[in-house]
């Protein structure tokens, strides 16, 4: 079992995140999920741009902090360049779902052998709190000062529908389930997507009268519910219409992965 010192770059602590940022909690869950099974010399963390993507620099493994939104494309090249590598993409709702959207859906469709950990805090945190495709309807942000008129993406549903081998969503208020989801995803082949609903007290909280981390944490937890087995969630489309977030596994398949089909062609 790897110690914190073996898994994290503890020389970089205290971490640069704001007080109460959910990224730190996600890192704890990532550590717990991987500490018994990961080969740190084969692990490659791939992050885009944003606070959540910076988790890539806190893990003591090879890591590449790429251009905004393109982590999944870089990860594709890394994995195909050396299929022995254990490639994990980490990023936020904006990086992975807005600018990175095209790469997200195509990698899912291809069932590319990478694990994507999306930390969804409903906002563009690093740049000061602008709206993201995940910002809830009516949410205030610096670019939606009168309240977000758009409805947010249900990325996990989208990715599930694109044929990913694994798509699950939990939150930082459900650390045990989040750890299990990452563990399960890590063992599978193909495209695996784990979304962790998280909090950004600085970017989202402050703009929406939920500035205290504990306040925002409780608010987030109150908006989640656990999906019943074989249950349909919310609106049935990949858009959130009711402001509630279903948690659970949205896809758990064993469709032929990209590398598996590549191997087949070689024969």
């Amino acid at each position, binding site marked *: 079992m790897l110690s914190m010192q073996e898994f994290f770059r503890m020389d970089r602590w205290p971490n640069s995140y704001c007080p109460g940022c959910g990224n730190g909690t996600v890192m704890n869950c990532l550590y717990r999920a991987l500490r018994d099974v990961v080969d740190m010399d084969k692990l490659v963390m791939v992050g885009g741009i944003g606070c959540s993507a910076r988790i890539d620099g806190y893990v003591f493994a090879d890591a*590449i902090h790429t251009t905004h939104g393109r982590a999944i494309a870089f990860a*594709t090249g890394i*994995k195909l360049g050396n299929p022995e590598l254990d490639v994990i993409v980490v990023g936020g709702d904006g990086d992975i779902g807005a600018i990175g959207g095209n790469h997200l859906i*195509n990698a899912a469709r291809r069932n590319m052998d990478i694990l994507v950990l999306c930390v969804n805090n409903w906002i563009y945190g690093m740049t000061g709190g602008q709206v993201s495709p995940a910002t809830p309807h009516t949410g205030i942000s610096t670019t939606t000062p009168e309240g977000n008129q758009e409805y947010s993406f249900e990325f996990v549903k989208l990715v599930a529908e694109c044929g990913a081998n694994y798509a699950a969503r939990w939150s930082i208020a459900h650390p045990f389930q989040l750890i299990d989801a990452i563990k399960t995803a890590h063992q599978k082949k193909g495209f695996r997507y784990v979304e962790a609903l998280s909090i950004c007290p600085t970017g989202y909280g402050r703009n929406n009268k939920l500035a205290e981390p504990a306040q925002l944490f409780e608010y987030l937890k109150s908006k989640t519910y656990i999906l019943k087995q074989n249950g349909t969630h919310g609106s049935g489309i990949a858009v959130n219409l009711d402001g509630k977030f279903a948690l659970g596994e949205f896809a758990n398949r064993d469709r032929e992965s990209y590398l598996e089909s590549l191997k087949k062609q070689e024969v």
Partner: protein
Amino acid sequence: MREFLLGNEACVKGAILAGCRFYAGYPITPSTEIAEAMARELPKVGGTFIQMEDEIASISACIGASWAGVKTMSATSGPGFSLMQEGIGYAVMTETPVVLVNCMRGGPSTGQPTKPAQGDVYQAKYGSHGDYEIIALSPASVGEMFMLTIEAFNLAEQYRVPVMLLADGEIAHMRESVEVPEKINIINRKLASPGIVKEVWKPDEDGIVPFPVFGKGHRVYISGTTSDIYGYPSTVKPEVHEAVVKRICDKIRKNAEKIWRYECYKPEADKIIFAYGLPSRTALAVARDTDRAGVFRPITLWPFPEKPFGEIVAGKDVYVLEMNYGKMLYEVERVAYKHGAKSVSFLPKLGGAIHTIKEVRKFVGVD
């Protein structure tokens, strides 16, 4: 062994011989044949081909695969080249070897997809934001599509830098016979010593940082953000960024003399025609029939072969041929006048029209 090849196919042949084992690209006229040939040939040598969803994904995947230790390439044309600029900047910043082919076509915008042009030659050097240097090569024949692609890989590996092959659409689509040599000189990137690499960005004496391939236990953090020598973000102190800019630029600037490749034909003549790519074939045809005109053909457009060109232009009239409305012209003017040239004239060809021998003879004044 002599083979009759399409320009684009010669490029692929050279790439594979140079050791390219990964191609991520997107179809775009007139470069598509490169992707198609790679799709056929790469699996035969154990390489991987993938058609990505766009050019941005293509360059990203190429950079990723390069970090996994593989020689990678992508090919595109103007519109795709524009999309790749952010990725190019990233490759430069992270000193990632990658080869990019731009089969230039009429621009700007969608322009003339099937007509050759040379409008992107400045974009190759200045297309991405910030301060940086790259290497760009200009082939003038199918044979050079083959040889210069190998050169491109060698230069990319040696200098840990993206290298562009700027072919015009006509060179990409013409067919000529090529002498494929038995032996090829291949250069591979200098690798980091085994073990954890703490000083990720410490260059050796030669100015080149050893490359820490992923998955070898080096545990390196690579980032496009300005970083300190350990790879951690350090964006506030001016001296840190200055050191980064100087490292990525000086390795090219200080080694420019070793990187320059050019052809000088009858340099003693009073008139010097400056041309590269397709128009250089016309220039050479004109110069063959007269002693009054010589040709300076840059093979490396960047770094611009300033010294060898400057040495032959004092007191002379310089004639520039380009398939654009003025690009290398400005570099020529700068260098020529600095070295005492008498005059610099320009004959542009736009829309895919080609310089004819007759009009160049008239333009240069040797008819």
